[in-house]
């Protein structure tokens, strides 16, 4: 009986030991945040792990807010975010003894997409704002067919949604009272928007330019009627011509040190930036 207990204890200890070092790697990093950036983070992590076999990096999504919240509560080492940190969040981080450090790792253009059957090819920012606030309700008001406009948006907690609201609907003016039309459909993912756009000639939506495909038509955007219309291409975003573009950010706890610093250096290296381009985002150099 005693021997049996001993074995039980031993095997239990073994189990604990094994799960604790399941990856057989000495160093781990937790990366969490923006759904827009999760594929990018994954690609960086895979390449980095190939070069440093002793390191394990776990990349998860959940959204910019989730990532920043995890950074504040200390459950991740690096937060990916497609929006800048809010002052409230900085205060909460400081209360926990964390000084978030911001890095611009890549750029992303937000593509405005419609069904390929739609006759429109271009829009100005104010036309776009009128569409998404519900002031323009039919495509014929813009020279399109007589079809009611269906608005597709990301969820209110998505970084893309927040960026679009601030820079297109409010046109960058914090005191602008305009809001998304309440009849905008809130879709759970960029993929869901792409799917509905492909099937529905009434629809208009927005998402990161990496998601565009042949089944959607991307519109050229101009700041106002007298400016040039630009398509969301890598060159146009890099040059700053395309109006609706945003930085893809990474937040770390204070100045990066050790493994976090190695990982950040890799992201900013030529290879790290090459991965950015491979995933249809825009490199910063």
């Amino acid at each position, binding site marked *: 009986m005693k021997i049996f207990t001993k074995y039980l204890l031993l095997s239990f200890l073994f189990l604990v030991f094994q799960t604790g070092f399941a990856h057989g790697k000495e160093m781990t990093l937790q990366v969490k945040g923006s759904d827009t950036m999760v594929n990018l983070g994954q690609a960086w992590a895979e390449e980095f792990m190939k070069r440093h076999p002793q390191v394990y990096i776990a990349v998860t999504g959940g959204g910019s807010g*989730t990532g920043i919240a995890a950074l504040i509560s200390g459950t991740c080492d690096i937060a990916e975010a497609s929006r800048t940190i809010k002052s409230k969040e900085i205060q909460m981080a400081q209360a926990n003894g964390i000084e978030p450090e911001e890095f611009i790792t890549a750029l992303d253009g937000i593509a405005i997409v419609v069904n390929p059957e739609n006759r429109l090819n271009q829009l100005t920012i104010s036309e776009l704002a009128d569409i998404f606030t519900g002031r323009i309700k039919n495509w014929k008001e813009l020279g399109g067919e007589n079809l009611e406009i269906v608005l597709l948006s990301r969820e209110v907690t998505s970084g893309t949604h927040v960026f679009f609201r601030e820079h297109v609907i409010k046109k960058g003016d914090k005191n602008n009272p305009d809001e998304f039309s309440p009849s905008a459909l809130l879709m759970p993912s960029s993929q869901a928007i792409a799917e509905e756009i492909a099937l*529905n000639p009434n629809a208009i939506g927005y998402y990161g330019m990496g998601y565009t495909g042949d089944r959607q038509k991307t519109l050229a955007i101009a700041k106002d009627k007298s400016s040039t219309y630009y398509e969301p291409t890598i060159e146009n975003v890099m040059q700053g011509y395309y109006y609706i573009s945003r930085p893809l950010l990474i937040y770390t706890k204070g100045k990066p040190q050790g493994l976090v610093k190695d990982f950040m250096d890799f992201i900013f290296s030529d290879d790290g930036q090459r991965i950015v381009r491979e995933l249809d985002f825009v490199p910063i150099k």
Partner: protein
Amino acid sequence: MFEKKWSFRRVKELLIEKTIFFCGIASIIFVILIFIFLAKETIPLFKSLPISKFLFGHRWYPSTESPHLGILPLIMGSLFVTLGAIVIAVPLGVACAFYVSEIAPVKIKYTLKAIIELLAAIPSVVLGFIGMVTLVPLIKKIFHLPTGLTAFSGSIMLAFMAMPTIVSIAEDAINAVPSRYKEAAMALGATQWQMLWRVVSKAASSGIVAAVMLGIGRVFGETMAVMMITGNAAHIPHSIFQPVRTLTATIAAEMGETVRGSEHYYALFAIGIVLFIVSFIINLIADFAVHRGRNE
């Protein structure tokens, strides 16, 4: 010696008794704890926002600088989807229960029952996905709507989900009608239809009401499928052919990203309380119906 053994048995008895008692009241404790937890996370919201403004506010803009947290559009959304689903599922489900228990030949009866139970086993996310790619484009085409992501699409899909609940509980109720009632009706010269409609359905009515209420509960609390196919537009719907956002979908979609301790966070818990109270009332009605049936 004898005394010692006796007391050991008594302790054992007592232990077993207490364990069983604890198991019995565990679920009650859990429900109470859940309610306390929800209430605790909700109270901070109502310090800054009056309850009437929360329940009857027309605007749900939770993530703006000064958030609007009115859940009337969400309540209406849940109501529209639930009503639509019930209108579809109740006649179908109850008729199906009658067919299965009273009319169908034995072989068909068991096949049907097995298939209906299988329907209950399909995960709701799968039903939602099927609805998204098949039902949604179809609805858009048939009704010439700007989008197929509407309350109606959600209702149809949820009717499928409520069917197994309604059929199996209603069928139990119909089976429980004593055969002497039916025999008496037949002996008086009633046709099968007259017997089913005037005797069996009356005798089983309390069970059928309970089945319907539990079906409603199932629909009201469903999350994943409605989130995928109702469009999630937080406006007050004017018809069932418009996109809506339900209470459950709001919690599921937004909880992941709210800042802990923000007004938005507390508001989502408050929505949880609203859901809790509504399903509590639905279950209470179902329970009441069953007891009334038994006492008659």
